[in-house]
């Protein structure tokens, strides 16, 4: 990887004019034309909307007929004040915190364990790899259908549990709705993270396992003292990605718990953005929630980095 980031050596230019031109535009200025459509796309779809979101969050922005000239005054932090004074918003952020506390550690532990097991030369390797990856490539809308079937009050899970089944059932129980969503997302995304760890495991030097074995370390000990530190960069990445994916939770609470039910117990910030911004027509409020969410995710990511890199 590192080698690929290096600048390749420049071929020597011949004439003086050519040398000046290649100093200014590079020796193959055509490259700029090749990249231009992609950069234009990024500007239009990422950079501009990002700035626009921040702009909206500081203005009294509302929907108007296209072309109509309306006054959308600057309101300072009024939208933020409205957002922070809203208990529903606080609940949504608490919910996503519960989600992350369950989802992130579960993802890291399970994907690393399964990747380590898969990494050993074993039979049916391809079968396992494919079966772990299938949920990741399937539409959440499709898989949510079968989870509703499995986890509804009269579903297979409850009929297997019999008297142990929770009441009210999983997805309509205010204490279990968010954890169930968190487990669902862990299950759905795990294949991707297993693949990520599988790649990282290739970079752990084999000699370390050998010297651990010489020192009399068992499998479990060598897993803890060689594998876990060996894949630490990957772990940082997995934690970051799982956090970002989790913070963007929308489809699952929208469909699995009927729009963040029961009683808002599984509302996520992005679901709230949809409800406030588009259903209720307050894109300024929704943008403020979005900006707070981004800042929150950045803070959590920084904190995680600190914790992971401290040791």
């Amino acid at each position: 990887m590192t080698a690929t980031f290096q600048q390749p050596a420049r071929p020597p230019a011949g004439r003086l004019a050519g040398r000046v031109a290649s100093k200014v535009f590079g020796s193959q200025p055509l490259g700029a034309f090749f990249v231009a459509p992609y950069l234009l796309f990024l500007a239009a779809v990422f950079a501009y909307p990002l700035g626009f979101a921040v702009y909206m969050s500081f203005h009294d922005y509302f929907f108007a007929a296209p072309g109509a000239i309306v006054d959308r005054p600057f309101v300072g932090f009024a939208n933020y004040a409205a957002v922070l004074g809203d208990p529903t918003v606080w609940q949504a952020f608490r919910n996503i915190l519960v989600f992350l506390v369950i989802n992130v550690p579960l993802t890291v532990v399970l994907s690393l364990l399964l990747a380590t097991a898969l990494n050993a030369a074993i039979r049916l390797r391809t079968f396992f790899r494919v079966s772990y990856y299938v949920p990741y490539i399937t539409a959440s809308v499709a898989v949510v259908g079968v989870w509703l079937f499995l986890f509804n009050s009269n579903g297979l899970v409850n009929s297997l549990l019999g008297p142990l089944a929770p009441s009210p059932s999983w997805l309509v129980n205010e204490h279990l709705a968010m954890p169930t969503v968190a487990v669902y997302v862990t299950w759905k995304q795990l294949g991707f993270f297993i693949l990520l760890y599988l790649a990282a495991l290739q970079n752990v030097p084999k000699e370390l396992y050998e010297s651990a074995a010489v020192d009399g370390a068992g499998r479990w000990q060598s897993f803890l003292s060689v594998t876990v530190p060996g894949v630490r960069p990957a772990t940082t990445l997995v934690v970051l990605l799982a956090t970002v994916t989790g913070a963007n939770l929308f489809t699952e609470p929208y469909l699995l718990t009927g729009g963040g039910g029961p009683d808002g117990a599984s509302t996520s910030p992005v679901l709230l953005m949809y409800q406030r911004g588009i259903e209720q027509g307050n894109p300024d409020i929704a943008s403020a929630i979005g900006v707070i969410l981004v800042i929150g995710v950045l803070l959590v990511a920084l904190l995680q980095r600190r914790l992971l890199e401290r040791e």
Partner: protein
Amino acid sequence: MILVALTPDTDIATARAPGRAAPRRAEQPRHAGQPRRRHAPVFRFLTLLAGAFVFLFPFYYMLIGSLQAEPDSSPGGAFPNPGNLTLHNYREINGAIDLLQSLINSGIFTGGVILGTVVFGVLAGYALAQLEFRGRGVAFNVMVLVQVVPFQLLTVPLYVLIVRNYGLADSYLGMILPFAINSTAVFVFRQYFLQLPRELFDAARIDGASELTILLRVAVPLVKPALLTAVLLTFIGPWNEFLWPFLITKEAGMQPLAVSLANYMNNVAARAANPFGAILAGACVLAAPAVALFLLFQRHFVSTNLGSSVKG
């Protein structure tokens, strides 16, 4: 960004697997006396098997549930019962949401994204990997930075811009626009073009070939496996995407299958005779193309014999 770095790596992993097993086997005799060591592989295999069951069972159950005339959620219902099998659920969901039109919409949405990604992504990936021009470093950094911006946060401003300002609601263009070039795929392309030796292109240049000719005649044929990987990666994005097409399509005739199925689940299902049967039938139709493509081409998520095609 991440997936990209990973695709070639995993490939190496699989290729090396037999070789890696050797030293491990060699150390076996040393510990042959310890029963713990002998049980470990069995335990590992059982763990993997349990994992596979947890991952695959919902899919099996999806299929079974979609074929049940009466929803049977007892443990016995997990096994096919010839007396309770029917295709009626598929007719039911087709009557409620016009499966064919939804599939066509999903196909156009996905096809548009793949087309945009392949055309502009290959151009950008090639330039970033093999061409020397001013601003290349900046372009690359921007590309990496973009991977960090979560799409969901852009939905509200994009909705305002595309639906309200440009009036692109209920149109394929509006659906495709935010996804038109998949950054992960651009990264894959760049990564593969980087692996091609520079001399190959210099030779073509000396022969007087234009950059576009070099790209189409020399570079692209050499990275065909990467093309397939990128197309597969790109496919699952729009095919499975829910939030964006859900926001911008209100007209049922324009909705991709993920959206029309979700609307059925939320609004109509409660009134149907066997709601789960119909939902699961729709879910099978939605899941089938992605799963089939992945099973068919799963090798391309791991092995791409690029090295040999260049050397040979």
